[in-house]
């Protein structure tokens, strides 16, 4: 069972993000991952262990190969939450831009008062 902390910790590493990007294209074995990234197999295995413990990938047994693939649930739940937050905040702050503009317009005119003392709209 993944925890969010573990998922974010796993995602913080650029190599692990690159491995996830590769796995987004399809299942891959340790060998297939080691080659393009010029990493040793133990290094790849270590990264895969972190990703698996974070619930971000699933590994299945196929002889000794244990190919890895993305675990869709973990990534999707993080994305859904951040997506909801982003939309709610974007809507709020777009409205706040308008509120701030109205606050500027209501401020008393600067020192150089016009002679009739007319209020700005």
């Amino acid at each position: 069972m993944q925890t969010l902390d573990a998922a974010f910790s796993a995602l913080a590493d650029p190599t692990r993000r690159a491995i996830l990007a590769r796995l987004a294209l399809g299942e891959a074995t340790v060998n297939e991952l080691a080659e393009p990234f010029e990493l040793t197999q133990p290094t790849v295995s270590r990264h895969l262990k972190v990703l698996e413990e974070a619930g971000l990938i699933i590994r299945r047994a196929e002889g000794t190969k244990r190919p890895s693939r993305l675990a869709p649930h973990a990534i999707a739940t993080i994305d859904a939450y951040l997506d909801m937050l982003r939309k709610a905040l974007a809507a709020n702050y777009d409205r706040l831009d308008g509120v701030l503009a109205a606050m500027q317009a209501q401020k008393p005119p600067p020192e150089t008062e016009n002679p009739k003392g007319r209020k700005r709209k």
Partner: protein
Amino acid sequence: MTKLALKTEGDCIIVVTRRFAAAPEDVYRAHMEPDIIQKWMLGPDGWTMPVCVNEARPGGKIRYEWADGKGAGFYLTGEFVAVEPPHRIVHIERMHLPDPTPDNRIETTFAKDGGGTLMTMRMTLPDEATREMILKSGMETGMEASFARLETML
């Protein structure tokens, strides 16, 4: 450049940044005065905030109630930890859905940025159970459709 940026920092911190074309004093006021808060902190179109309590002092209480005008709604309560006008606010908040979510500590800063303000907000990402509760609640109240999309993917 006013576009919202949302990124993660370390294990589970969300950092939101946004620029505003107004001085920090004004952006700060807009976050602290109830009659101003009620004009913009509304979420999706069609929602209102009929109740806004915002006691701007350390230990002061926060209570925001939202309604969609069709009988759905939820509320948030919290307390201020630090109130340092016009540059920094720290508060604790929880949503009531209706069960309260775990406390989240949120630090908001307003820095002068040319003629405007750069706002930075740091919050803790909710744990998985809380996140699902929030997403499900959003789906029930029609605030957000992405969780419905997500569920069909699983």
